[in-house]
């Protein structure tokens, strides 16, 4: 505008034609910024897991020895395994296990971590010291090792896997949420709530909790992929949900001896795993940026 002529200035002063604003894509703001690829993958994942029986006519446990180790064909789009079971059907039903384990483990560890993080950060003092040392202890445990030991001790099964993953998972929630609460509890609105006569529980639930929700969602989205991966790892090592229930982990491990002759046994569950974890991480990154108040416009 430094080179604008007199007439141009006159019009702006009279306000008859306001300076053209930089067009802000308000209406399609959210839609254009959504991470379409990871979102699509995740929607398909959930859809497949929920509607697995409707999407394939094969029984994931139905053995057919004459059909064993068949490469992908129009009958079996992803081939069959060593016992003649349809790989696609097993992949679909395996998605269910992944979804159930990841969702329950993240919800359990998330709720525990949220409660401990808020209590620790808000109450401070001795409570904080004890809870945070406890968190340190659990953070120091190697996820895989402790899950393995736990599963071996209690016996494999869906519930055991969920508990095993939650035992370790909550500490990450607790640590991050506590640090967030430390800054929230110093804000004036918490002081104002105290002035108004609110008790500690009320302040934690009504004032602190909603303010850590963004952070909670971001950790959740990143933890889900970790849980899917850990579940697959446990299954791969034979410590997850026991066979014959199909999981991506035990499918990969079952296919390992045949990697040179029947590549489809390992490749498809491996690809599925890669796709889910990658998408989940992309989505988590997007969510973190999206919810970051520093990147938000007034």
């Amino acid at each position, binding site marked *: 505008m430094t080179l604008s002529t007199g007439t141009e200035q006159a019009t702006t002063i009279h306000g008859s034609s306001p300076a053209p604003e930089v067009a802000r894509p308000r209406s399609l703001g959210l839609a254009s910024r959504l991470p379409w690829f990871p979102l699509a993958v995740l929607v398909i994942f959930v859809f497949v897991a929920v509607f697995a029986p409707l999407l394939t006519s094969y029984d994931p446990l139905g053995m057919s020895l004459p059909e064993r180790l068949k490469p992908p064909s129009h009958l079996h789009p992803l081939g069959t395994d060593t016992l003649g079971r349809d790989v696609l059907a097993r992949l679909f039903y395996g998605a269910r296990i992944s979804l159930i384990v990841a969702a329950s483990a993240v919800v359990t560890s998330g709720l525990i971590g949220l409660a401990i993080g808020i209590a620790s950060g808000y109450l401070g003092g001795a409570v904080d010291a004890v809870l945070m040392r406890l968190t340190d202890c659990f953070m120091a445990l190697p996820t895989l090792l402790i899950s393995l030991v736990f599963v071996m001790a209690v016996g494999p099964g869906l519930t055991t896997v969920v508990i095993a993953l939650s035992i370790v998972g909550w500490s990450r929630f607790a640590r991050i949420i506590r640090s967030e609460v430390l800054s929230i509890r110093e804000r004036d609105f918490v002081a104002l709530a105290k002035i108004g*006569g609110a008790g500690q529980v009320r302040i934690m639930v009504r004032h602190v909790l*909603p*303010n850590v929700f963004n952070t909670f969602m971001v950790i959740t989205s990143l933890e889900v992929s970790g849980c899917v991966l850990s579940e697959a790892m446990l299954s791969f090592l034979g410590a997850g949900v026991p066979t014959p229930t199909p999981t991506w982990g035990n499918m990969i491990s079952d296919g390992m001896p045949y990697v040179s002759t029947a590549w489809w046994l390992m490749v498809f569950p491996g690809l599925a795993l890669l796709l889910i974890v990658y998408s989940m991480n992309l989505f988590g990154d997007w969510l973190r940026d999206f919810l970051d108040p520093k990147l938000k416009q007034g």
Partner: protein
Amino acid sequence: MALLEVENLSTHFFLRRGTIKAVDHVSFSIEAGETLGLVGESGSGKSMVASSLLRLIAQPGRIVGGAIRFEGVNLLSLDEKQMRSYRGRRMSMILQDPLSSLNPVLTIEDQVGEGIAIHDKLSGAALRDRVIEVLKLVGIPAAEKRLRDYPHHFSGGMRQRVVGAIALACRPQFLIADEPTTSLDVTIQLQYLNLLREIQQRDGLAMLFVTHDFGVVSKMCDRVAVMYAGMIVETASVREIFNNPCHPYTKALIESVPEVDEKVDRLSSIQGQPPSPLARPKGCPFVTRCPVAMPRCAGEMPPETKISEQQQVRCWHYV
């Protein structure tokens, strides 16, 4: 009997480096419907007095002595649960910064209604009606339509009105205003002060007005207490404080207020720095900066001396 009587209140902070006497033997009283101004420079302990009255001093600070009598009840002898029934209902407070005083993720209705829900156990439509009533009281236009709005939907001045609504929701008898207009621009300041005055006259509200602005003092207050280094060095009516300031610190404060109709080349200011809170002089805390200090001032704390019915001063020159 005064509504609020504070006697020898002391609040100390126990740090590893030493003890900070943030509030040191402070005494004052406020009648129903009266406004006491509490003035002093930053760090003089004004806000600590305010927090102490509500017993909201966080670790490592502690109220170490004195009495706070509200309607004759010593608040320092109450347990935490009884104290909570005073906060918000009988005494309340407005904080300085309307931007951070409101919870960004709760609606206005939730925030204004919180105190009413806690103390009067209202819910549903009855709660909503009370919230609307309070919002109207503080002059929020079209209050009914703004209940579901969030703080970021409001301008700074309106937000501070909402903060006022939160503080006044349960109709307290006593309000502490901790520099409520410092972060507002001048015209909005005036509106806000008028509003507080109006509510005060209607409800007979007693106020402790914490400020460092003598313009606000002359507009709002009946009496003034001047704080320096955790102590009240002079208490007087507004008229006396402007016409006959006694303590050298009060004199210096009044002199440093620029006059509108006077042409000044240099603004007058008080020489030197307040003493470090960890190493206060044994005698009068102002001795290090006082233009008329005597040898005696450094050695002994001056007693409170009565100048007139309403004016007391702590200075050896008046003993």
